[in-house]
């Protein structure tokens, strides 16, 4: 089959584009370490949340689990996040465990790629690195009822020099 030379050119170009697209995604996954929010958080019966150590003892919280490593346990419910505010030091790696006792919610760190769906019966687990100090807003981005628009929280990333280790 005789293919015109220009057509060869743009066929080759299209293939190069596909390779470029896959290449950048691969770069993100391998070099930068971008991951998807997976189901690795496991499941939890919504009425068992009050009896679950992670979410009830003493209350949803941030826990230090290693040098610069923290775990945050958050309950997203109509129409608030518990706790409403999380405090972590600058440069920390935070693993979020978020669950819902009622309906579908979202947990989005505003203006960033940290964005999770919170599903009743499921613990959403995602790890995020906070390199820069500052106040990050958190909003629910799944319509969850009449008070949805008031459902917000915050993550205070405190400079290392001001961090006293508490919450």
């Amino acid at each position, binding site marked *: 089959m005789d293919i015109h030379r220009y057509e060869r050119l743009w066929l080759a170009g299209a293939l190069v584009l596909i390779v470029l697209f896959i290449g950048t995604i691969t770069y993100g996954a391998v070099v930068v370490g*971008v*991951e998807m929010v997976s189901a690795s958080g496991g499941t939890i019966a919504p009425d068992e949340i009050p009896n679950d150590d992670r979410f009830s003892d003493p209350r949803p919280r941030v826990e230090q689990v290693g040098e610069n490593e923290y775990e945050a346990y958050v309950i997203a419910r109509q129409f608030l996040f518990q706790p409403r505010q999380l405090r972590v030091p600058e440069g920390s790696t935070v693993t979020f465990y978020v669950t819902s006792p009622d309906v579908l919610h979202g947990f989005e760190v505003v203006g*960033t*790629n*940290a964005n*999770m769906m919170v599903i009743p019966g499921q613990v959403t687990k995602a790890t995020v690195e906070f390199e820069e100090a500052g106040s990050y807003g958190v909003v629910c981005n799944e319509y969850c009822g009449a008070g949805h628009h008031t459902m917000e929280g915050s993550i205070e990333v405190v400079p290392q020099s001001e961090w006293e280790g508490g919450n």
Partner: protein
Amino acid sequence: MSSESATPDSGTGEEAMVREIGHDEFDPIGTLTLIGLYFALLVVLWLFMYFVEFLGNGPTVVG
């Protein structure tokens, strides 16, 4: 709908062929340029979207 008096080929251009060219002589340089521009645009926008808008928009989920 045309009137009986009109010649069948009037206005169709079928009689207007000036010359016949071979496969390799066909040179749609304008189409090539346009597609080239589309490709360049796609590449630039993709790089911008991925590296600037996505990767530059940290914190990102890493685990």
